[in-house]
């Protein structure tokens, strides 16, 4: 695999960012886009545009086919059993809200418990909090260990007879910990508990096999997966999506509408109300093709090498403290520098063209637990190289110099 060649497929790296070459280490936030994805959006709007699933004219039929092609590509990519288990949403956040909202309407009852973890992004906590308010459910938190991991044992410890649902991240966007989702699901299912997975960080960086994971729901963020913004995917087991009520009402999701009754459409239309992000869906097919052309095993190997290299580099750098040291780790390097606030780090690194994220990364629960208000985070994607991490380390040294450390 030739990373230089892959990097050339991303037009942004031809740009000078404040006179610097871009060292993009913020892919856990959002990935850059390969040219084929950008071009596809342009091509669709320029030559093929029509709304989908409604009109019978040529363009509408062609656009509908393209839209449905992506659904098939996603199904194959994540090895879902049925095509209509793939629902497009406006993002992973909406996917998780859809699950919480519909389960809240028809499945979860007052007093039921939902188990999440201290690693969760706000989008996998706040939707459950809504149910805590409206339905009086209880939210329990599985706690991280010293390494920033959530173990199967910890999950087992926190399950009570009232636990109805477990909602967990596949890969922590702060500590990088990869959770044993398959094992957690086996355990949960043996107790009749539903499993929801926030796959925002998992989907771009890990091999996905829904039938093997066996989770009930899996939320994907397309813009973190070399795809367009404004698009997410919800995978849901057919039996759940059939059983649960619709999330939003509007055009496209109905079967029959009368003054006294309304019946809803079949899957997946039932969950795709209104005009969808058509161009994004059609372009997302190219993101999947892009990932397939490299091979997810190669992506995982490259990113694991990068993280190992970066971890060693930063561990050797005095006054840099890495957050979390999980055995199974994805492409995330979160750190603090004693005496320099993460926002100052990010601003100083930016001056060298090094783009990282600073803040709580939408994980305030985790930062409270770690007793820090914020952290700095470098995260990798397929286009990153060891030279990028060398530049990160060098810019950190410059930061230490400015702060006289």
């Amino acid at each position, binding site marked *: 695999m030739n990373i230089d060649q892959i990097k050339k497929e991303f037009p942004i790296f031809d740009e000078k960012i*404040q006179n610097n070459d871009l060292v993009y280490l913020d892919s856990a936030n959002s990935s850059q886009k390969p040219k084929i994805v950008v071009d596809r959006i342009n091509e669709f709007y320029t030559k093929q545009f029509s709304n989908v699933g409604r009109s019978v004219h040529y363009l509408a039929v062609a656009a509908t086919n393209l839209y449905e092609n992506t659904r098939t590509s996603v199904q194959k990519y994540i090895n879902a059993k049925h095509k209509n288990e793939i629902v497009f949403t406006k993002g992973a956040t909406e996917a998780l809200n859809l699950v919480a909202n519909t389960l809240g309407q028809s499945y979860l009852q007052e007093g039921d418990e939902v188990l999440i973890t201290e690693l969760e992004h706000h989008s996998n906590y706040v939707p459950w909090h809504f149910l805590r308010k409206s339905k009086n459910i209880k939210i329990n938190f599985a706690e991280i260990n010293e390494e920033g991991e959530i173990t199967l044992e910890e999950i087992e410890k926190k399950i009570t007879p009232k636990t109805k649902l477990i909602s967990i991240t596949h890969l922590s966007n702060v500590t990088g910990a990869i959770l044993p989702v398959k094992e957690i699901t086996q355990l949960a299912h043996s107790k009749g508990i539903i499993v929801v997975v926030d796959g925002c960080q998992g989907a771009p960086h890990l091999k996905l096999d829904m039938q093997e994971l066996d989770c009930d729901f899996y939320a994907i963020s397309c813009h973190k997966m070399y795809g367009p913004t404004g698009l997410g995917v919800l995978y849901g087991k057919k039996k759940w999506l059939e059983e649960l009520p619709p999330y939003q009402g509007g055009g496209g999701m109905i079967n029959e509408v009368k003054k006294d009754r309304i019946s809803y459409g079949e899957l997946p239309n039932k969950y795709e109300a209104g005009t969808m992000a058509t161009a994004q869906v059609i372009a997302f097919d190219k993101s999947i093709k892009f990932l397939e052309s490299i091979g997810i095993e190669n992506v995982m190997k490259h990113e694991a090498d990068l993280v190992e290299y970066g971890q060693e580099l930063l561990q050797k750098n005095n006054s840099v403290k890495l957050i979390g040291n999980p055995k199974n780790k994805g492409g995330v390097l979160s750190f603090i520098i004693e*005496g*320099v*606030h*993460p*926002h*100052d780090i990010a*601003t*100083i690194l930016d*001056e060298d063209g090094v783009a990282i994220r*600073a*803040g*709580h990364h939408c994980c*305030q629960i985790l*930062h409270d637990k770690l007793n820090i*208000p*914020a952290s700095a985070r470098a995260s990798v994607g397929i286009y990153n190289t060891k030279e990028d991490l060398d530049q990160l380390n060098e810019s950190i040294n410059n930061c230490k110099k*400015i*702060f*006289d450390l």
Partner: protein
Amino acid sequence: MNLKELYQEIILEHGKNPRNLRKTEGFNKDAKGNNPLCGDNIHVYLKLNGQKIVEDASFEGSGCAISMASASIMTDLIKGKNEHEAKEIVEDFLGMIKENPELKSKYLSEDEKTKLMCLSGVKQYPMRVKCATLSWHTMVSAFDEEMEEVKTEN
């Protein structure tokens, strides 16, 4: 963009050793502020005497060098000013951070102006402006004794 302009010696020094980072004993005005984007928070305490003059000002909280230095310099120079003067200074400071090339308030000495102008480098970093202004917005709500926490967006 110029890092040296942003991280001037005086900012780094105040950031490292913030003045008035404590809770004023017998304070009679206070307010909390936070920046929801980054999780930084601050609590400003004021002690006004019978003539409504700031006898003491202090703050607690954590944040970046810019926000710590800004709160440090603010609490130092606001002492001895009355509410009217303090609020005019706040307006002047916020105007300078956003667009004005200089400070105009007659309630600021030349020395105070020089100190505050050290924060002017923030102008070139729009994402960091809120770091410099959080403590100032919070002080205004302390004067007004608003019950809600201040949130800065700019």
